[in-house]
């Protein structure tokens, strides 16, 4: 008896809810639009918070990319200002273009010797173009197709770049070493290198503009009997964490002046 009453009471509740649902469906649209906001505000508050969080994350991502490009531009400008003597004229800033190039592939062996980027000849990338990050030099472009380019990084065994000590202005040649470090060659035994010195590109060789950051001196071994002083450098750029590089594009039709004079093609051959 009690069970039957409970069953019928449950059925009555169910029918009331069903009829109420039908009633809500049949309400006029204007009335629906009037009554829903307060209920929606209460029940959908976490959902609105989630949506605004997603939009914030997306806008932060876009802002991050914009700031990374700005940082690379400023690093380039900084290099130009550090390198140019006051007497020379200003470099043609309009001729320089930094092309943001996402990294789409890496070498499978170490993940840091070669990078494939998704910008190619159609975007103005050429063989020999310098690849930069906001922190410093990444490497140079060694192969280009229409829409992709291969970047040889500073850790590729054949990579070499002429550098100088920003403090003492002494020249050397940087090449990859062990344990994610670079080694400096041709450092004379009496050269003044100290841990913490900033190493920048010297501009010699016609590939890398002068003044771009390479790294800081990590260790200096004093060996008076050695032909050259062993110096190791900690690069500024962490290649394995790069998701995007900036390719320095200089239009072929404009010859660089001033700060970028070292990029002009050689006209006089240096005797060996």
């Amino acid at each position, binding site marked *: 008896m009690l069970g039957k009453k409970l069953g019928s009471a*449950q*059925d009555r*509740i*169910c029918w009331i*809810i*069903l009829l*109420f*649902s*039908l009633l*809500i*469906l*049949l*309400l006029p*649209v204007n009335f*629906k*639009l009037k009554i*829903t*906001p307060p*209920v*929606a505000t209460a*029940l*959908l508050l*976490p*959902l609105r918070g*989630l*949506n605004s969080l*997603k939009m914030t994350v997306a806008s932060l991502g876009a802002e991050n990319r914009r700031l990374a490009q700005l940082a690379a531009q400023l690093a380039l400008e900084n290099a130009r200002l550090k390198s140019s003597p006051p007497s020379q004229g200003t470099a043609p800033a309009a001729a320089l273009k930094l092309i943001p190039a996402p990294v789409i592939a890496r070498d499978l062996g170490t993940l840091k010797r070669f990078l494939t980027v998704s910008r190619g000849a159609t975007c103005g990338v050429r063989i020999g173009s310098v690849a930069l990050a906001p922190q410093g030099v990444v490497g140079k472009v060694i192969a280009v197709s229409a829409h992709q380019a291969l970047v040889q990084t500073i850790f590729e065994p054949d990579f070499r770049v002429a550098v100088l000590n920003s403090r003492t202005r002494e020249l050397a040649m940087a090449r990859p070493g062990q344990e994610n470090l670079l080694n400096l060659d041709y450092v004379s035994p009496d050269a003044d290198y100290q841990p913490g010195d900033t190493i920048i590109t010297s501009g010699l060789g016609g590939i890398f503009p002068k003044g771009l950051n390479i790294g800081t001196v990590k260790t200096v071994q004093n060996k008076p009997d050695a032909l050259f002083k062993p110096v190791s450098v900690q690069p500024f750029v962490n290649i394995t964490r790069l998701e995007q590089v900036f390719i320095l594009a200089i239009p072929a039709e404009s010859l660089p002046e001033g700060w970028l004079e070292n990029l002009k093609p050689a006209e006089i051959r240096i005797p060996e």
Partner: protein
Amino acid sequence: MRQFFAFVLIYILFLLQTGFLPIGPDLVLLALVVFARHENKATATSLGFFAGLLFDLIAPRTLGIQILIFTMTGYGVSTLRNLLYSSHWQPVIFTFVALMLKMTALNLVSSSSPPLTLALCTGLTLILSPFAEPVLTRLFYRQEVRSRRQGKCQL
């Protein structure tokens, strides 16, 4: 207490579905079918009403359609569960019928998604339906399942 947590789970699944899985399985419908198979009619119908209300608040112009669909689903499943042979396929059949009802009703009010999206959502929901039952049963109806296995009478 269990009924309260059922409402909470429906709400959490609604947030998950609308916030992170706009094109994905209908998690709320899956949970509703499972709860309706185990709870009494009033609870099942109320759960359906609550689930439908949450979806209708997103699109207030068509307020009432999803409320009606989910309420009918809750009531229908709780009423018919004893009339059909209880098997692993029962939740799948109920889910399929509920999905067809939902798609038909939403088409009538012209607020349905593109066909490919609908097909994908339907397919994913049906694929997950056999797995939703054991998961939720373990969480909410462990005592009943244990008693059934031991052959004890449930009063």
